[in-house]
């Protein structure tokens, strides 16, 4: 190939690339970009892939309704591969390079902590859909999952009503279970439970040999007082835990287990016959009898072209979060993050259990709390529901250090950790 031909080809290629980027720029002006930051590979792919699909479905539906502000929405999906530092890199890529107007993503608390500085530095918006340990309120993050007072505390209240006197707090060894159990321990003690009636146990991620722990629980529960396990065991470790419970003959009528991380999606990987009667506390169950929910389930199963796929609580959180963002953008008339963040406070949209969830000034939302018992078909039978909606509390009232703190992102306070005793904002953003 002669040099001239090479030059000609090169220039052709260059012009083609330029033309393409011009087209891209034109498209970019016509669409509103929404970032989806969920792991599609690695350990968390099991939970997060579903949320990516949920976002794609919500965006597609919004586009069918005519988009937003006269523009189409465009999803930008990236894969942070269950790698926490990569979450921060991908978040930066979404905001700086892709120029997304809002991002929906993260599952584990550590991934959220990893992207938080990026969102605050670049002033992006993150909607975080998973129940978490609280003790945080960032200007740039909207927590659509449950705070501890929207899940753990009502769950314990329910068990107390059922006559439980002895408590096993079992969790995976990381920040969410440790903080939640600290809050629960303080709460139980405030309710008059003595230290000898609380057993706390932590296990590594993916723990699979539960023999001794289940035997310990059995012993702990044979002291003549009604015993329950409050489980913050995460992800994969749950299946062998429940299998061991079943094998050692512990039924829900003897020692019920109430879980905060086990939903329909996790149960679809287990034979649930031995688990009937064990409990979970969430803000949504697929079995909720409501027309909005029926429509959502139908749309979801149609979107993934699989009638056996289940829906779960973090999916509902994305449903609420996305609709809130859409309403806020309409209200503000722009997608500018600062304007949307101001507009979204007070926005109320329907949740899937027949009520309206509202965004509060502390960037948490109002939700009902439901307690469900596992059924043999992998679904939950709702046995208790809070009479009204519960407001998410960013800073727990049961921990000494965070008792005096409140979060309020409205002017003039505009602070995520305002100390009402010293009347000071720590200055830290989260």
């Amino acid at each position, binding site marked *: 190939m002669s040099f001239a031909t090479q030059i000609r080809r090169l220039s052709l290629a260059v012009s083609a690339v330029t033309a393409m980027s011009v087209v891209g720029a034109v498209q970019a002006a016509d669409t509103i970009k929404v970032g989806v930051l969920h792991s599609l590979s690695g*350990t968390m792919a*099991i939970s997060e892939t579903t949320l990516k699909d949920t976002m794609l479905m919500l965006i597609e539906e919004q586009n069918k309704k005519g988009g937003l502000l006269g523009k189409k929405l465009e999803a930008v999906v990236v894969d942070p591969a269950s790698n926490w530092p990569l979450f921060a890199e991908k978040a930066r890529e979404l905001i700086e390079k892709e120029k997304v107007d809002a991002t929906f993503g993260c599952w584990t608390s550590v991934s959220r902590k990893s992207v938080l500085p990026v969102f605050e530095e670049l002033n992006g918006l993150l909607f975080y859909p998973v129940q978490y340990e609280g003790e945080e309120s960032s200007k740039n993050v909207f927590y659509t999952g449950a705070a501890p007072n929207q899940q753990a505390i009502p769950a314990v209240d329910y068990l107390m009503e059922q006559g439980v006197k002895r408590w096993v707090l079992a969790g995976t060894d990381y920040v969410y279970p440790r903080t939640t159990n600290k809050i629960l321990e303080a709460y139980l003690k405030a309710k008059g439970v003595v230290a000898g009636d609380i057993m706390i146990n*932590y296990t590594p991620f993916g723990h699979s*040999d539960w023999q001794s722990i289940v035997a310990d629980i059995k012993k702990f529960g044979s002291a003549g007082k009604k015993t329950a396990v409050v489980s913050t065991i995460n992800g994969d470790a749950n299946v062998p835990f429940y299998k061991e419970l079943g094998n050692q003959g512990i039924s829900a009528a003897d020692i019920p287990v109430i879980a905060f991380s086990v939903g329909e999606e996790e149960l679809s*990987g287990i034979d649930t016959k031995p688990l009937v009667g064990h*409990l979970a506390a969430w803000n949504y169950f697929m079995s909720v009898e409501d027309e909005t929910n029926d429509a959502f389930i139908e749309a979801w199963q149609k979107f993934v072209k699989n009638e056996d796929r289940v829906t779960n609580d973090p999916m509902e959180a994305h449903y609420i979060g996305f609709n809130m963002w859409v309403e806020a953008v309409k209200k503000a008339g722009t997608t500018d993050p600062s304007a949307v963040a101001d507009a979204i406070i007070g926005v109320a949209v329907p949740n899937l259990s027949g009520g309206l969830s509202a965004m509060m000034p502390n960037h948490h939302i109002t939700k009902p709390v439901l307690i469900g018992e596992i*059924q043999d078909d992998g679904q939950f039978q709702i046995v208790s529901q809070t009479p009204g909606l519960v407001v998410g509390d960013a800073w727990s009232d049961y921990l000494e250090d965070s008792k005096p703190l409140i979060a309020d992102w409205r002017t003039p306070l505009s602070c995520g950790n305002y100390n009402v005793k010293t009347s000071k904002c720590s200055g830290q953003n989260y």
Partner: protein
Amino acid sequence: MLRILVTTLLLCLVAPLMAAAIETGDPALDAAFVKITDRNFATKAEGVTALAASGNPKAIELLRGLLEGKLRYLKKNKRLVWMQRQDGRTVAIDALNAEDYGKFSKRKFKKLAINNKMRGQIGSLLAQMELADPDPAVRLASVTAMLERSDPAQAELFTRMLSTEQDPAVREAMQAAVALAQLSDADPAKRRQAIAAVSDSLQPGVRNGLTRLAESDPDEAVRAEAAKALEKIEARVEFFGHVETFFFGLSLGSVLVLAAIGLAITFGVMGVINMAHGELIMLGAYTTYLIQQLMPDMIGLSILLSLPAAFLVSGAAGVAIERGVIRFLYGRPLETLLATFGISLMLQQLVRTVISPQNVPVSNPDFLSGFWQINGVLSLTYNRLYIFVFCLLVFAGLFFVLKRTRLGLQVRAVSQNRAMARAMGVRSSRVDALTFGLGSGIAGIAGVALSQLTNVGPNLGQAYIVDSFMVVVFGGVGNLWGTLIGGLSLGIANKVMEPWAGAVLAKILVLVFIILFIQKRPRGLFPQKGRAAEG
């Protein structure tokens, strides 16, 4: 006008309630049914008590159906129905008069939901009602169930029934229950009698009763005797606690051995650092899942069929990996490590794409569920027992292949001195492929066993790869006995430490111990001897 409107509205509200009335001919039963079909669980519980008290011959059957979640009701008139399969379709049969309501449809029927409190309630009601069952086995089960709930009010009932009870086992259980109840008798002499009667029992209820007496009985002699009996019982409980820990250790160890034994061949005998070993285990587990999908009604058989199938699938994958990649990298351990690590990621993603990124459900057959109750405090779970035996069988089988077959001879020859073996006419490359396939196939079999214990998902292999290398290195590379002894002793060490150190720390301590051990004895527990080992 307004009044008419209100009346109409009221009528509309009342009309469905009127339609909901149930007519069984027995007013007590009718009332019970109305309550059971209520939404409120407290009301339902009242209904259950009423149903049990109604004395209706079908009450036991109905309560059991309620407990097992098999009872539904027709939304329209709240009749209780059973679901039955008839000629390939599901029909609804009235639970009381066996009337056929025709085809079952989800919209027309609702499951009768109960909660945990009601499960307990129905359980004890059933136990009481079945005390009069003609079958001694049912009576025994019901007495035992009542014993667990240890309700002191039962003593009188049992004392009365003892006068007519003939079956020795049932009598014994009843006597225990009576003694247990008498621990709280008003007469100190009777309490002491009761202490003597229960002092051999390991029932948790007995221990709780004795603890209560030893701490707070007003009579000093009773306190002393209770303390003495308690001490004796505690000593036995502690002994059985040790037995239990030892069994847990053995069973954890056997899982480690199963996961590692394939690696003991590929890494130990051939010297290939195979990072994809965990994924070969995963393939075996997925084979179990796929076979179960093919025969959903025969879970037990599917597990047995999975064993050869998993061996073939993983073995074939192993041969393909060896022929496709590893044979070009012999003698270059670093590159082998990287290449096989890449293969492991590819296999994981393959499963994610082809099957699903979600975990898949694998059912346990009945013979692998439940536990063997040896006494009041010691029970061994069947799945762990079977897996321990299975581990020994696999080990024995592999040992036989390596020591007693032609292939085994060739494998040993090639691994000890490749050049010499080739000079003797052994086709070393074929032996390499077969050896790798054998190790991989064993990994597949381990996958079948693991599918009964843990999650089957794309990450299954990763969870076991570190443990497998740990066991092989600790036991001594190239020595099958080392893998067996090493795996079992690591399992026991882990379980002995777990109760006081916690699961996280116990695992760390085991790893630290291995690091120190390898410093002292780099070749592991059972180092391979001879010229080959030096090379």
